[in-house]
């Protein structure tokens, strides 16, 4: 859902809409975002491969490491979605809901899954399973 959401509309300008990657590019080029935000936006396209790495690690049995990568991805995607939803519209562009909302739902589900796994690991020791 994080990856699907990232390709849904995030920004509308006129009759055109942009996915999260095109939005990130436009924001970097048109707004004075500051160095840190600019670097984070430059890294945003990595979210796809990060989610893939989390799934691949899970498949090959490295589940704790997969949970860490998935958790980081969820944090990044959640932060991006919340930032987009909180952004104030300008007179020529406004945030489109589908992309950030779907991404935020995906990030929340992943975060819950990671938390559940962490809770299970702590509450139910390996020896008792």
């Amino acid at each position: 859902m994080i990856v699907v959401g990232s390709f849904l509309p995030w920004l509308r300008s006129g009759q055109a809409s942009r996915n999260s990657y095109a939005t990130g590019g436009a924001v970097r080029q048109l707004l004075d975002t500051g160095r840190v935000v600019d670097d984070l936006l430059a890294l945003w396209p990595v979210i796809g491969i990060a989610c893939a790495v989390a799934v691949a690690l899970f498949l090959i049995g490295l589940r704790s490491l997969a949970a860490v990568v998935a958790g980081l991805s969820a944090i990044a995607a959640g932060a991006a979605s919340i930032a987009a939803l909180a952004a104030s519209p300008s007179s020529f562009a406004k945030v489109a809901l589908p992309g950030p909302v779907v991404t935020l739902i995906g990030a929340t589900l992943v975060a819950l899954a990671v938390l559940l796994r962490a809770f299970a690991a702590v509450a139910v020791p390996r020896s008792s399973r």
Partner: protein
Amino acid sequence: MTEEDLAPGFEILPQPPKRRHGKLLTSIAAVVVLGAGGAISYVAFSASGGGASSPDKAVQNVIGDLQNADLIGVLDDLAPGERAALSGALNDDVASLKRLGVLADGADPTGVSGVHFAAHDLTYADKTITVNDHVQIVQITGGSVDLGGNVAQLPFTQRFLDLTHAPDKDQSQHVTIDHPVRIAAEKVDGGWYASLFYTAADAAAGHRIPAAGDSIPAVGADTPEDAVDKLIRSALSLDLRSVIGIVSPDELGALHDYGAMLAANLPTPHALPVTLKSIDFTSTPITDGMRVSIKDVSLTVQGQQINAAINGGCATVDAGPLHETVCPKDAPNLIGGLVGGLSCAGFSYGSSSGGSGGGMVGPHHVIKSRASSHASSPMPAPAPSILPSSGAGTFGCQSPKFTDAQKQAITDLLTGLISSGGVDTAQVGGQWFITPVRTLADLGANVLGALKGDDLYVLSSIGR
């Protein structure tokens, strides 16, 4: 466990071969997932900008974005240097115009039907015209364009629409392209972008292609202050080549490439009777550059020494017997005096009142006369003043009377002008250059930013 460990009657049966297929399939699935993730990231990186693959595509992108009323797309299509010059100020302008009640706060950008642009059956020349290794001209040879607008449907406030008496009717125009329309595209970092300034330069040059000898090389300075110093000295000595040379090649590369050709079309200017003695600057960081403002300057104009300094938002001028400090709050009286003077078909001169070496003229005007400060001088010569005095209107001239709100609006306007007045500079290839377009765009944005509340409407009421 071995055979010896087994109880009698038991034996170890041969084990079926371990299933390795599961692990293999899992590994293949992991690799596929990684490949898909890589592909997604590659597509994502491609979507995050970088220009078009050809000059034609760059122009088509602009036309497509115009048709979609996609202002962000249009800005994104521009060459990065031009985009940087315009976009920052545009963002600030939009925010300021909302604050000042010109643009509606809750305007829905997706519902803007105030302007429409539709291109039909556009055809392009088979080949582009090469200007140099990074600029090509795309020719639109046929088709038609429908261009229309209804100001009343733009996201302006009703108050602004009432003020401008904008008619609530659609005004459309159909244009058939019967001769080539030339649009320049510039290649930056491997991507092609439409270029406003190269398009303008091409038109200004009468569509002639500049030769290599027409180019004026970019020669920057070591510091932002040196760049502005060079600009001012070059301008005062009417050295147009040096003026163009210090202009940012990122922002106005067109000026460099077409420089000699454009300069040849200008009339030869007369020498200025001005000599720059010294100049000192203050610099403030701006996004991707520095804004350089004049702190103090010493000039000789026709043998007359003039010193000027800007401090705390006020300008102090020393010119012979004249010594004046003008602050933004003086502006309404200054403007009133100037307008009053002009209404007499000539400038009126105020004179410092009081015989003790200068005095106060108006509530904020600090005027000191060096000539009159000589105690030994029996008849101190009146110091000429550019500020209106209590004698303004002596000749029966009427100065405009400003309301308190108008005075405040003028003060805010002048505060914006003085506080943000400066020349924007940017670094290109380790050298500092002037960015004139950004300077003008930022100045406009900063002046708008300095206005408050109803200032814009109050200013528009002056003289009505």
